């Protein structure tokens, strides 16, 4: 269990980082990384939804396999995720208005965030995920990995905004190139070896 925990942690955060190594969740990664504050908000919201989605979709898929309707998984998963987002929005609004004002605007956007549907689908394919507990951890660490990447990019973009830059490179192209440099840095983590 311990080595599985470490493997999930390293994979989710660094080696298999959802953004820079797997290209999942690119839209919010580039769309909401202008300011560090909003990047942190989006990161927390995504992590939250990823954990809940892993918790619900994993047992649901087992049930679907038993019923022999696993080919419907994409339709079922996207509906579960849309419902989770809707419920979360209502609940957070009721319980903590301050958290809602920080996170609220990002929540509806998460339905179409491929990182969430990605974690639900990859939970079924990853060899590290062996049960509900590991699925939950995979959701958590993948979400934290997303948060890490988006916050780093936001930090770089905030600094770069103050620099003079060719107008054709400004905005999206330069963010893409920055993300490329991040991906290069993240390659270092693939040298970490676990066990033999």
């Amino acid at each position, binding site marked *: 269990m311990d080595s599985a925990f470490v493997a999930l942690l390293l994979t989710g955060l660094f080696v298999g980082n959802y953004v820079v190594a797997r290209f999942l969740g*690119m839209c919010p990664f580039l769309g909401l990384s202008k300011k560090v504050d909003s990047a942190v908000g989006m990161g927390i919201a995504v992590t939250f939804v990823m954990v809940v989605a892993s918790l619900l979709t994993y047992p649901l898929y087992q049930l679907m396999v038993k019923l022999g309707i696993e080919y419907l998984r994409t339709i079922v998963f996207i509906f579960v995720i849309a419902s989770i987002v809707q419920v979360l929005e209502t609940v957070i609004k009721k319980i903590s208005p301050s958290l809602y004002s920080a996170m609220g605007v990002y929540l509806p956007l998460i339905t*179409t965030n491929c990182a969430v549907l990605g974690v639900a689908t990859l939970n079924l394919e990853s060899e590290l995920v062996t049960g509900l507990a590991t699925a939950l951890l995979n959701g958590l660490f993948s979400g934290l990995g997303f948060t890490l990447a988006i916050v780093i990019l936001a930090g770089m973009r905030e600094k770069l905004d103050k620099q003079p830059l060719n107008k*054709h490179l400004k905005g999206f192209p330069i963010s*893409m190139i920055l993300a490329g440099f991040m991906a290069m840095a993240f390659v270092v983590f693939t040298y970490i070896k676990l066990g033999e």
Partner: protein
Amino acid sequence: MKTRDVAVNGLIKENAVFRMLLGLCSILALSNKAINGLGMGVAVTFVLVCSNVVISLLKRVVPNKVRIPCYVLVIATFVTVVELLIKYLSAKSSAIAQIGDAMGVFLPLIVVNCIILARAEAFASKNTVGASAIDGLFVGMGYTIGLTLLGIVRELLGSGSIFGLQILGGFRITFFSQPAGAFITYGLLICLFNITYEKIEQNNANRKRKASVTLSNQVTEEGAVNG
């Protein structure tokens, strides 16, 4: 709306890959080889045309408040159709099986590809069935061409081949096949496309201005409304 306008719009003006910057995940992940880009493009175009047609048919039936979940359900259905189709074809041909493997998780993720939802919301929910089908086809083709182009550049530099055909001998820079290479190549290609697009726009504007003063007034007015 004229077919020609829809075509220019889908292929160039609002090109999904280079202008609208939608569906980034699949663009970056499947541009490592030209053939993967082409395969993904065809899959997305199929879903786009089908979902545009159905959503256009349903536009008077679906209540405004629940339209997004309905669109998503329609799109998810067609994605499932594509998934099953590829599974079926993979058993028959090893070439398709290879592309299917490369697509992997990005095949079910077509559901959350923003291009499809964007066309449903911006075009299919407001236009006739025929126009929506044509729009889906051209936007899909614009996406396919953009993705394949990026795939050709990355495959040529990263593996020294195009569509699996070795042309650079043993020369390759593996960097371009890796994630970091995807980001940087894509960023630079968008920059290049923007420069070219601006040049063409300027040339067109200049030519029109020379042709007639009244016409040029109209163009600037149109530009102001569109912009």
